[in-house]
């Protein structure tokens, strides 16, 4: 009796999400350029910019860009954590709130009034948007580790494409990711 051929090695499943970020981290990930085609040989994208999947399935790796600025971000992050074995905080926003956290020394109600009622060129009678369809903004922008457990962080604003590549290559090979000199930066 012939033995069945060994099953093809299962591809790793990778999901990505943007919370309160600028999408620059996702762009930097795409900056791996042609290496993208090599990556999709070994990694299957779950919900991500590269697929049209709508919900996070069970994933090996979840990359999170952006911090938490409203109630919806929190809900999406919790769902992500629940579905991903390894969760990675990618970029300054996810790690420490990043630039959006500059609003933390201001009161959210005053901030909203300043932008929607006190700018040049506004029509008379402008009110702060308050429809129930809009998720409630949080008082402060929070880094994601304050709400869920994270396994790794990939620093930078954004981390470079080479940093993404090194990180994923290590994970795919079953090694603990190590960003060597030059890949670890915070700008």
């Amino acid at each position, binding site marked *: 009796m012939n033995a069945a051929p060994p099953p093809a090695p299962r591809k790793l499943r990778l999901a990505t*999400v*943007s*919370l*309160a*970020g*600028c*999408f*620059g*981290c*996702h*762009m*930097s990930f*795409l*900056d791996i*350029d*042609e290496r*993208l*085609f090599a990556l*999709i040989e070994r990694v299957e*994208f*779950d*919900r991500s*910019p*590269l*697929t*049209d*999947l*709508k*919900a*996070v*399935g069970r994933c090996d790796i979840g990359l999170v860009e952006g911090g938490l*600025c*409203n109630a*919806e971000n929190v809900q*999406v992050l919790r769902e992500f954590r629940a579905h991903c074995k390894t969760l990675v905080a990618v970029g300054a926003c996810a790690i420490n709130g*990043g*630039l959006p956290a500059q*609003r933390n020394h*201001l009161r959210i109600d005053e*901030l*909203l009034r*300043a*932008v*929607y009622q006190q*700018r*040049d*060129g*506004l*029509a008379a009678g*402008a*009110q702060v*948007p*308050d*429809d129930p*369809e*809009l*998720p409630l*903004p949080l008082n402060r922008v929070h880094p994601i580790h304050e709400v869920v457990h994270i396994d790794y962080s990939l620093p930078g604003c*954004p981390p470079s494409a080479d940093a993404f590549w090194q990180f994923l290559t290590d994970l795919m090979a079953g090694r603990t990711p190590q960003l060597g000199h030059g890949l670890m930066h915070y*700008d």
Partner: protein
Amino acid sequence: MPFDLETAAHPERLRRVAIDPVSRVEGHGKVTLLLDEAGRVQQARLHIVEFRGFEQFIVGRPYWEVPVMVQRLCGICPVSHHLAASKALDAVVGVTGRGGAHPLPASATAMRRLMHYGQVMQSHALHFFHLASPDLLFGFDSEPQRRHIVGVAEAHPEIARQGVLLRQYGQEVIRATAGKRIHGTGSVPGGVNRLLSDDDHALLKGQAAERIAWAEGAVALAARLHESEPALYRHFGEVPAMMLSLVRPGDGAMELYDGVLRVRHADGSLLLDGHSDQRYLDLIEEEVRPWSYMKFPYLRALGPERGWYRVGPLARVQNCSHIPTPRAEAARQAFVAAAGGAVAHGALSTHWARMIELLYAMEVIAELLDEPALRAGELTASAPRQGGPGGDSEGEREGIASIEAPCGTLIHHYRVGRDELVTHCNLIVSTTHNNQAMNEAVRAVARHYFDGRALTEGLLNRIEVAIRAYDPCLSCATHALGRMPLDVQLSAADGRPLDRLLRDGDGRCTR
């Protein structure tokens, strides 16, 4: 009621359908529809649900930080914000724009222009190949599992490869001029901080001819798609709208880095020309509506109901008098001819216009690479300071600038106090200019496809296709790329669930 289908007369009797969030756009947006008992659309709205408050937390920061900070508004078009802020702050350090006593050095202008055209190119390539092409190549009703760039890579490997490499080239232009592909530091108030290195010059020049050829191929692909189903491409999400963009002063040629504002009526006749961006407040007023964090701008003179307009590729290609590079101009003429002399207002025509601009940007980059000023010359202008410590006048200095970002006209406006700290910031980003036009397109598609019909994934995707055509970039106002789960719930007025459509992780629809 100012806008048809914007507000329903008796929302309490209607059932609600939500597309939450709108996906394969980099923005946190959602669409809600209210349907009456016969399934007719009574209200349709695109809500922008994220608020960040950049305009306010920039206040109090030193002005020289601003060109670097504001890039974090959007990682897709950071250079547009970087340059718009630099241009506005040029005035604050006493440097004048076109003409004037203390102009920017030729090297700085050339470097900034190169950086900007690199930005337009990479964003247009991303938008067309990575985000929109799956809908166009596979169809709006194709399996969602396949509607993505990986699917394109499998079915059309050469298209996917060229898309990735066209985007890469734009990003490399940005790296070479800004120091970093995303959130670089190349431009500063009053000039730039580097010139183009010989190595980068050789690299970019070496690849330019091939990239121009690929860009021509991209235009041909967009045109072919259009010709394959002319009625669909012409009329899908069609909303007659005025067109606003910058054009080159004097001859009205396409110009994306610096120009004067021109507005055309929806029928193509000229409404206004040569308007200086310094007087944007005379021209534009913004309304706030309770259901979106994105404001609704319109021409002050015409008011909110008649004064809204469209910006971006579709507006620019039809608003300019001509395109000043030969290949893109030929492509523009073919676009105009295909519309038979009428103005194209269909959402999908935007993709064709976008690829014409990709080709234009690529041709401008190739021309700029022959500029000696890129590699030798002054970096910054020295000008007497206006106001500020040691300056010659009291009080605040003001800077206003505009630029054509990939998605449309972008306006930055700052005031800076004597202590060098920003005292005021007002931003009108491209997506905001398009807010009413996107809402109108959503309404046009909703009315056409939803009235009285059963909900399907394909129908819902059509609404998203219309939004994506304008702008995958709700990100300047907010963000998130990638498909999110779609949970559409229909409930009766008393809250009783009526119907529910779920798109699961594999993109399958269940009820």
